[in-house]
């Protein structure tokens, strides 16, 4: 914002924009990271289809982006854990935007309570169900569409927690690790068909997942994730860490030999 900001001429006051770059489907659109991603893609000229469980909350996020970015934003109800519904959901999305669907971003996830998951397997199962089963289910249906279309991008927000199993959150970590492998395989399958598959591994991001758990100065603004994904899609990247330095932190953590790692308390 500048003190000298000029008004646009009356004909295009906040309404006119260049032709759309296509529609991006965002799954799990009510989180702060999803909101940041949506704003970044709207900025890059995409229209948005926001999907999530809570219709009221989705509508709030959508209204906000329409006003901030003057983008075309629609909403659709989606429940990641209800895998039975995913085929119909994808059919609805395709009926809705069809060839305009430029890409999909899976943002939903559940950190859960790792203490509880030790004693209550149903909670562990819920974590696995949302992070791994739910994500791979909906992406299975979408991958087939993109394979046929011969273009588009699939982005999965995984986690650095999936890079190595740790005592503090190995249920969540194993589900995210599974998702990372799923995306890797999908990338291998779809590369020759002209479809990009991007794995995003966030480190500490300033959301409710880290609020009060991680010192605020160590947690990156969610905006960083949105900008990084838009850039990585543009540059046809395969795997990104956000913020970038997590690549090196995780490189070191992965290199530690198991006989050392098992004695650590990370």
């Amino acid at each position, binding site marked *: 914002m500048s003190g000298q900001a000029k008004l646009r001429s*009356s004909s295009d006051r906040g309404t006119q924009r260049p032709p759309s770059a296509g529609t991006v489907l965002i799954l799990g659109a009510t989180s*702060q990271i999803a909101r940041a991603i949506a704003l970044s893609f709207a900025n890059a000229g995409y229209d948005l289809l926001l999907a999530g469980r809570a219709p009221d*909350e989705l509508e709030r996020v959508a209204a906000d982006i329409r006003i901030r970015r003057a983008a075309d934003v629609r909403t659709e109800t989606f429940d990641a854990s209800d895998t039975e519904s995913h085929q119909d959901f994808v059919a609805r999305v395709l009926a809705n935007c069809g060839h305009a669907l430029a890409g999909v971003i899976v943002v939903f996830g559940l950190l859960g309570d790792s203490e509880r998951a030790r004693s209550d397997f149903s909670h562990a199962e819920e974590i696995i169900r949302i992070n791994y089963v739910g994500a791979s289910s909906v992406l299975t249906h979408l991958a087939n569409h993109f394979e046929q279309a011969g273009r588009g991008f699939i982005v999965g927000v995984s986690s650095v927690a999936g890079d190595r199993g740790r005592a503090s959150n190995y249920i969540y970590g194993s589900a995210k690790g599974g998702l990372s492998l799923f995306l890797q395989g999908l990338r291998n399958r779809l590369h020759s068909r002209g479809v990009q598959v991007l794995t995003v591994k966030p480190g500490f991001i300033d959301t409710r997942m880290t609020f009060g758990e991680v010192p605020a100065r160590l947690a990156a603004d969610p905006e960083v994730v949105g900008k990084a994904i838009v850039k990585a899609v543009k540059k046809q990247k395969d795997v990104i860490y956000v913020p970038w330095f997590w690549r090196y932190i995780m490189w070191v953590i992965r290199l530690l030999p198991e006989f050392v790692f098992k004695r650590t308390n990370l």
Partner: protein
Amino acid sequence: MRTPLSGWGRYPVGISEVHRPERLGELKVPLHSSGSAIARGLGRSYGDASFNSSGCTVLTERLNRFLDFDPSTGALECEAGVTIGEILEHFIPRGFLPPVIPGTKFVTLGGALACDIHGKNHHKDGSFGRHVIDFSLLTADGGLVHCSRDENVELFQATVGGMGLTGIITQLRLRLIPIEDPRVVADYDRAKDLDRALELFHESDERYKYSVAWIDCVGGGTRGLGRSVLMRGNPATGSEAAVLRPEKRRGISVPSTAPSFLLNRGSIRAFNGLYYRKHPRQARGVLSGYESFFFPLDGIRDWNRLYGRNGFFQYQAVLPYDDGRDGLVKMLELLRKSGPGVFLAVLKRFGSGNPELPLSFPMPGYTLAADVPRRGSGVLDLLSRLDDIVIDLGGRVYLAKDARTSPEAVRAMYPHLEKWLEIKSRFDPANRLSSDLARRLELLP
């Protein structure tokens, strides 16, 4: 999470449990749990209004979604965590400005409503609450109540200016004002003393939409007591913007890393003297960017740290026009004699107030806001003596700035406080909404 919190004056500091909801539904959680809660926007109130050290503090910064905008009426609906800065960013390009612009853009609308803030246009347009169409309030019982001038009127009146103590404001509708150009055509007038400043205010304030004066509380000698620089302007029109010369950025910028000992009586005198003299006796038609006109201090991030660990008080009071001049003279004399002196002070004329809002601050009169370092033993005593002058003349201090006044003083300043307490006791009998300010000033029935 438990964390130390303070207002912009960095005094007092309280340790509070902190929640930061990211979805509307999560806002209810702190109210469901036992204990009390207060909402906090960006913590720009100066004292202890924005935290609750005996319960939890709810950060509203993530509940900042724009919900609806009607360009034909300027009505903007948004969540309470949206800031004045965000409105400027997104609505100046559409040709609209917030109806009231405070001295910093880092203010949430929830905070603006709860403090019934004012800006440089108060003499023309009144306070923030006047431009609010309606809002939703999460009350102590966990219900969401729609408040307007026709619906739940008492709760509306107790909430505008109610310091967040009637509930948590979730969303509101505000009427923005259409503009041709975001800049301001400003006139500057140097006034050699207080009387000249007041004379200029009365002569010509009605010609300006925005009006404020910087006032020297340390220098000027006995003859120049209250020497000032009046800065007044009107929104630029499209044709003016095309022909006027933009202002040269002149300014004394303060390094944000300065240690607090730099702020002493000598440097404060020197700064104020320099500030007075750097302005010409009179300047007309200076085209100013809105950032430099409205938010001269926002350019210096964390300027409050200049005052060091001890922090500072911002004393802001309004004195009714009758005898207001004499009251100002007494206040200025006291301030000038005080220890380290007043670094920055501002004088402005208020227009009509809102007698129907029991805790709203503005009323017709002169308002003086002075930054007083919290240093030396005499400061609290000095501010109490200022309170006495204010009470004597029928004025009041601004709760959003206050960190030290007494329950008795507030009762003398706000004649409708009893009515407010009665409304609060009906909607929040167990005082589930509470803050350090509320306990200090006994705003809990």
